[in-house]
């Protein structure tokens, strides 16, 4: 269980102290046990729930309206350079 949790935490870019890890491992085990119990139910004819409420379709019409202050969005980023967001170097080409 701990391994699974460690992987999830790594994927979510989180870092947890050891005691927190232990606490969460136990908690997660309980959650998964509960899900195992739920699995006993026969759900063959039930559509998987994607949303809790039965509302569908909210649309907007296709019209372009500029946001009032896009510059501000760049400014509140941790780092920027000439109106570009600045991030640690990432490059895909191997």
């Amino acid at each position, binding site marked *: 269980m701990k391994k699974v949790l460690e992987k999830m935490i790594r994927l979510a870019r989180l870092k947890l102290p050891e005691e927190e890890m232990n606490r969460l491992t136990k908690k997660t085990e309980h959650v998964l046990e509960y899900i195992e119990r739920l699995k006993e139910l026969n759900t063959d004819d039930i559509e998987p729930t994607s*949303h809790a409420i039965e509302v*569908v379709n909210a649309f907007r019409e*296709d019209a372009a309206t500029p946001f009032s202050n896009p510059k501000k969005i760049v400014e509140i980023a941790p780092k920027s350079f000439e109106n570009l967001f600045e991030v640690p170097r990432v490059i895909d080409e191997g």
Partner: protein
Amino acid sequence: MKYEAVIGLEVHAQLATKSKLFCPCSTAFGAKPNTNICPVCSGQAGALPVLNKMAVEMAVKSGLALGCTIQEKSIFARKNYFYPDLPKGYQISQYEKPLCLNGHLDIVTDGKLKRVHIQRIHMEEDAGKLLHETGHENFSHVDLNRCSTPLIEIVSGPDLSTPQEAADTYRKLRNILVYLEVCDGNMQEGNLRCDANVSLRPIGAKAFGTRSEIKNVNSFKFLENAIAYEIKRQAEILDGGGKVVQETRLWNQAKQMTTSMRSKEEAHDYRYFPDPDLLPLVVDTLWIEKIKSSLPELPEAKAERFVSDYGLPEQDAQVLTAEKPMAHYFEECIVGFNAPKKIANWIMAELMRELKSRELDITQIKMKPNQLAHMVALIENGTISGAIGKTIFMEMLNSGTDPDKIIEAKGLKQVTDTSTIEIVIDKIIAKETENVQRYKSGKTNVFGFFVGAVMKEMGGKANPKIVNEILRKKLN
């Protein structure tokens, strides 16, 4: 060992909407970095996405044109991964319940018809753009203008077996999307992109081999090159007793090879789940029917019509309808002068050759359809010869001047006045006594020489039929 290739395509097409998929930011290409961004597409806490209705209609249109079943209910899901071009930490896509399923596309490669299965079409948002060449060694930079522009991803079945078939499929998909006006199809601007999954298996085998996914192919030619390279690379690995690694590879056109790409996210664990911010999308029959009735004539139907209405050979009809603007140009010409085959010949021989050598497309030229039509009419009614027609054609293409004006300015009108032609012929016959003797002694093949001499003397403007008649009379 002999192998057969198994190839499938994933095509990303940017939908030609004015605004983004979930917010009202403009999708215009080439804007200054980070000017078309807002709290929604830049992933600010608490911002809520609202679906663009036009994007849905365009996606449905694409699905219908490709023979898909439109799903009444589809669901947007979050595809989670961390990358700097993705400010929310997830991409909104469709996973388990895409909008369109089970379509097909017919391609003809080397005269052979093949039906390619379209597994699915789903809607998703694009990511931002990463810039690496901003002069900083330790940093990359991000422009989020493209972030959240609407895309459809079209996934073909693993039905293709040669690089040519793959390129033909991609080409035809592009043509259909451009016909539908749901995508501009501009590969340079990246609004149409293609990834190819390639694997090999021994001929006759049923099971698939391990595949690699090739990214970054932004032209039909590159796609062919990349797949051909990948087939060779995998065959060499297998022949050497090795195993193909399942991975993503990038095509490098300059080096003419694919190179392995480091994985974006370990183990590709995207942890998809339904996006709670977006309601399920329901497209009912009424809406589908309405969209269906708005579908334009597609390439195949248009080609059939060109055969039945204009009496064109099937080959001509295929060539003329492959791209919508070309088909439109042709039909505009027909309005000007109703001689379909003659016009088709000029377009397919002269015009297409010039477009190719000048690297232009039909929408970029100065010559208007009615001008081309009028020139062909002038040839047909004998005002100009076919040879002069070519001169005028080039002039029209270069300057967009009306054929009548070119004829007048350059004095290119065909001479049909028999007495004028006769004077020239008499002059030639008087000069070319030796050749006249030859002709009279039975070497009638010098006749062509006389025609050529007269034409040269008259700057190509003499009516060839009249020249022939008078020459024959005089020489016999």
